[in-house]
């Protein structure tokens, strides 16, 4: 028969049960980023509000429908056609009723994207680069979809030019995010290469280098940040 001390000793062997280090680090990053995903929109100012509206799909009632992009006072969008206004959100907006107003609205949007692109160039902290990705990637995807729809429409030449400028703006915005990821991942990879690492840390660093070589900069950044967190957790 075991003594109480022996029994407790056996029970305490269960302390060996521990979560995997990699999971601990990733879970923490995910939990804290859940909050950051919203906060990271802040540098983009009104852009964050615009992004919300992008999540609504435009509705085209007829083949001749004209999509009007409107940036209201609060920086919101709404999609309309000639027959009726299609509301996509319960938000106050100003509906332009002339080509000139559409052009002004598109110019406003262009400015917002340019500002957001500049903000991206200034981001230096690795975690903020990853957080901004949560905004940029879905925005760019939706913007491209929307632009593709707009391109099907017959637009006046001066509106068409603004749309072309918008396409370039979205591309620059996308590239700014990719550059931020590449620049930050490369900086961290070079930094950790000069430090003595454990075998496990070296393995993760190797994966980061591989992802970087494959031009998967976001994955490279995630891996190289994992190296840092593994070091801190030691």
């Amino acid at each position, binding site marked *: 028969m075991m003594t109480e001390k022996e029994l407790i000793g056996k029970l305490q062997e269960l302390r060996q049960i521990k979560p995997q280090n990699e999971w601990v680090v990733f879970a923490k990053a995910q*939990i804290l980023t859940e909050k950051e995903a919203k906060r990271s929109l802040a540098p983009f100012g009104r852009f964050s509000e615009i992004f919300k509206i992008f999540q609504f799909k435009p509705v085209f009632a007829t083949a001749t429908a004209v999509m009007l992009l409107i940036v209201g006072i609060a920086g919101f969008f709404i999609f309309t056609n000639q027959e009726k206004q299609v509301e996509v959100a319960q938000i106050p907006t100003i509906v332009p009723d002339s080509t000139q107003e559409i052009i002004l609205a598109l110019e406003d949007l262009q400015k917002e994207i340019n500002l957001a692109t500049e903000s991206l160039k200034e981001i230096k902290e690795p975690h903020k680069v990853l957080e901004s990705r949560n905004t940029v990637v879905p925005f760019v995807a939706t913007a491209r979809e929307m632009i593709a729809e707009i391109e099907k429409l017959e637009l006046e030449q001066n509106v068409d030019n603004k749309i072309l400028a918008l396409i370039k703006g979205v591309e620059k915005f996308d590239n700014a995010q990719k550059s931020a990821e590449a620049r930050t991942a490369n900086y961290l990879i070079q930094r950790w290469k000069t430090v003595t690492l454990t075998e496990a840390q070296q393995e993760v660093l190797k994966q980061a280098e591989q992802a970087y070589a494959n031009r998967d900069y976001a994955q490279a950044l995630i891996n190289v940040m994992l190296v840092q967190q593994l070091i801190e957790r030691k």
Partner: protein
Amino acid sequence: MTNKHKEFSKIYDQHIDKIYRFVYLKVSSQETAQDICSETFLRCWKRYKTTKNTIENPQAFLYRIARNLVIDHYRQKGKVQIIPTEAIPIPIIDPSQNIEEMAMLTSDVNTIRLTLAKLKDDYQNVLIWHYLDDLSISEIAKMSEKSEGAVRVQLHRALEALRGGLNPPQA
């Protein structure tokens, strides 16, 4: 990083191992334990970031969420808590041990884990909190809303139940 971030990051680091182990011992699945554990900390974080002051006792709060999520897990799946009899790999930390020692230890750990998992939920909790997580009787009493005397009695009974499970009466 905001102050709330830094504070919560510290809470996470302090409690993740304990909460994971607590959940793992109840669900016996690494994947489920990870899911429940993530959700536990996520809920805590959501509460934490919206609270003006700090949460008074984050550890108790985390255990409460984790317990509720484990209950929900079994309720949602309509599951009876089934403990798999096959050996679930448990990381054995010291690589300097020889294979024979490691095998013996793994087997011991699994035996105790399976026996613990068959005990009443309340018994499991007091044993884990007191002997694995080093919580005092008074802390357990507060968390489980019982008197210290009641916790002592429960702890004693839980140990006896564990002993009984490890040494079943011979037929």
